[in-house]
């Protein structure tokens, strides 16, 4: 294509029209903070891991004593601490592997890998959190009715069904809202990245 070769020549000629920054200009720049997408992804991931910690604290048996939660919720909260640590470790490992000196494709892959780790963690948390809140909801409701013994005596199948359905729906609404916010945030940050990755992938077929 002769136009592109023409352009190549012109490209070199145009170099003298490029802006010229002084030593001081550049020096000032290295003192500034980055506003890159990876930096944002890092902060948001930290926030997500922190959110996990909050959930653990919330369901921790020693906190929020006004509601006595069933024993297996305690179990959940104990097991979630090593889970959080594992995911945090994996995330930091992955994050360290993000290097601007890799090829474009490797860089995109490493960023997505780091994101996937945190996403898996959040999904796991939402599912477990959802289950725990359904159980808590039912538990608290029954407790207010005077405890299991009284509830079981009075309740009919209809009552069981109603409280179960209400618990599930309430939880689903909360989960959907959380997920919506999450995906929005996620999509906003990752859109361009995914687009470019897809473009590179497309070349391989």
């Amino acid at each position, binding site marked *: 294509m002769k136009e592109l070769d023409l*352009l*190549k020549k012109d490209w070199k000629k145009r170099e003298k029209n490029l802006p010229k920054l002084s030593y001081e200009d550049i020096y000032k720049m290295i003192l500034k903070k980055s506003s890159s997408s990876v930096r944002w992804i890092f902060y948001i991931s930290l926030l997500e891991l922190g959110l996990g910690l909050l959930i653990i604290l919330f369901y921790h048996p020693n906190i929020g004593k006004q509601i006595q939660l069933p024993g297996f919720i305690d179990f959940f909260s104990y097991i979630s601490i090593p889970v959080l640590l594992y995911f945090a470790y994996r995330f930091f490992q992955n994050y360290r592997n993000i290097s601007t000196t890799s090829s474009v494709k490797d860089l995109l892959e490493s960023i997505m890998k780091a994101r996937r780790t945190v996403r898996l963690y959040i999904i796991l948390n939402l599912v477990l959190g959802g289950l725990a809140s359904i159980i808590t909801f039912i538990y608290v409701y029954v407790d207010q009715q005077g405890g299991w013994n009284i509830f079981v005596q009075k309740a009919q199948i209809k009552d069981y069904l109603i409280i179960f359905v209400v618990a599930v729906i309430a939880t689903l609404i909360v989960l959907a809202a959380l997920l919506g916010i999450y995906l929005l945030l996620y999509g906003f940050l990752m859109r361009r990245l995914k687009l470019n990755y897809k473009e590179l992938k497309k070349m391989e077929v």
Partner: protein
Amino acid sequence: MTQDLEHKFVSELEANQNIVHKICKIYTDCPDAHKDLFQEITIQLWKAYPKFRGDAKFSTWMYRIALNTAITLYRKSKRHVPTNKLDPVIYKVKAVDYDDTEEQQLALMYEAIKQLNDIEKALVFLYLEDKNYYEISETMGITEINARVKMNRIKKKLKNILNP
């Protein structure tokens, strides 16, 4: 020690700043955005500099980080008003009107490049910088064959934009 490193880095970047400016020219379309991207590339270069061993040329090392920043790390700021994408129909009219002026042809080419996506821009940039297909494929992380195929497609695409 740090001051030494700072001085060495800033001097080398100052001497090679053209590379970064050219990338900014391709990926942004107003002086503010140009400055923003230059700033971000400088930060990324500086962050990676302690690991720069000097076994590669400074400029070669710059290409990767600068392109990676433009493609992946740089977030287009909302405050920049994007310039209107030019309608291909307008191109057609213009192309007919000034077909033989080299200057016009070039201006159209530059505008056409602006319409390419991030990855295509990177390939064109490396091509214009006289990089061979091996270097292009290494920088992008694709095979040499795929780089060639893609480059041919881009040439066709540019041709279509210029002479629909």
